[in-house]
């Protein structure tokens, strides 16, 4: 009897977590949703809605490496497969761009699909550059909006260098994305 009650309680708790995550997501608290999803992932690993929510929250809070597991898990519906492809492109572009910045790897020969995500935009702009000497920073102008510019650079650290993308609108910093 106690087991059944505990089971029912666990089910209701799981439903609550998903609901809470959804509410937080709607209120743009992506980082919190990402960490909640990370903590409760094993319990909801078969729920594709949960995985998608977790993945988009992590994407919006720049935790790109956490997309690796959702990429592998999202496969049962058409929507989840397309999202999986979308995430995998972003993850690959992040890894390639970081490799290029760190080790001067040439990206100009690559032709990859793109997305509307900031990292993809910067990746496309960077890959248009031909093989060059590494620079301290790169400034790119948005193709659609001339006032929008992106600054790409490596912030050097004793342990691990981090890749930084800063968004500017009319010289005003809008957002700062840090990836490693």
């Amino acid at each position, binding site marked *: *009897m106690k087991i*059944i009650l505990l*089971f*029912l309680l666990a*089910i209701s708790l799981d439903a609550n977590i998903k*609901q809470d995550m*959804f*509410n937080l*997501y*709607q*209120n*743009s608290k992506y980082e919190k949703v990402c960490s909640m999803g990370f903590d409760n992932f094993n319990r909801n690993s078969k729920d*594709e*809605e949960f995985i*998608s*929510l977790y993945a*988009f929250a992590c994407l919006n809070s720049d935790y790109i490496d956490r997309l690796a597991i959702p990429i592998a898990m999202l496969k*049962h519906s058409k*929507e*989840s497969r*397309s*999202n999986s*492809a*979308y995430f995998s*492109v972003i993850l690959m572009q992040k890894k390639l761009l970081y490799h290029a910045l760190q080790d001067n790897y040439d990206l100009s020969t690559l*032709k*990859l*699909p*793109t*997305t*509307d995500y900031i990292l993809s935009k910067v990746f*496309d702009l960077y890959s248009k550059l031909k093989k060059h000497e590494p620079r301290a920073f790169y400034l790119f102008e948005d193709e659609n909006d001339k006032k929008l510019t992106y600054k790409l650079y490596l912030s050097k650290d004793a342990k691990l260098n981090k890749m930084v993308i800063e968004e500017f*609108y*009319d*010289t*005003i910093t*809008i*957002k700062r994305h840090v990836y490693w």
Partner: protein
Amino acid sequence: MLNIRDLEQRWLRYKIKSYIPHFIIFISIIVISTLTLTFFDFDKKEFRELPKKINKTVTETQRDKEIALSTPKIVPVKKPVEVKKIEHNKTTIIAPKIQEKISSAIEEDDILKLTPSLNFIKSMQHSTLPYYKEEPIVKTKSTPAIVEKVQELELVKKIQKKTITEKEIKRINIRRKDASNDIRDIIRRFKKNNNPALSLFLAKKYYELEEYHQAYNYALITNQIDRDIDASWIIFAKSLVKLKKKDMAIKTLNQYLKSSHSSSAKILLDEIISGKFK
């Protein structure tokens, strides 16, 4: 004498107690069965399609195996190279122009753009309760009047509070914006340092989002901080026109032109007067 009442009560309690476990088990079975049905309904659909897929893959793999078995173990190295060459030649002989066209078309075409699919959020919205929104709770104009009434009448406070909450619940408008997070961040920064560049950015952003009231407000704030910013006067006038206050827009632009002689403001004024800008 036996106390029949007491006995009856005890019997009733005993009976209820004996039924409780059955009742709980029955409910739990119903709950579990509904959950399993909903959980595995999706899987079943896929499962029906699976045998076909499996058959296909099995036949394909069998074919592959057969091909692998039929091919000799020691394959001469030259043969596949020759075959490849022939295929390549064939294609070049048959349609070299077409191939060139295709390759150039591929080069000309934009790179494939992947877009996220957020339909799952819609389905979640339908299945879950409406979410709360912290900042953009927009109340109608009549709400302050109700608040004043509450302050005046102390005795009827409780009843009025109830009515207010009911009305508030009815009048809550929840708006969803994609760029709202960025805007909120910039508003926060603007409140801290009162930088006119930030308020100008907000005015422009709100104008782009077609929220002309907000664009007007932030352009006005920018003008109050710094009167010499050309762009803020233009946004101010433009949002006035959009708010159907064309005369006021013309007046303000005329006044601004007296002090600045800005060419872009002049162009805008001419466009507003001629009716080109609506």
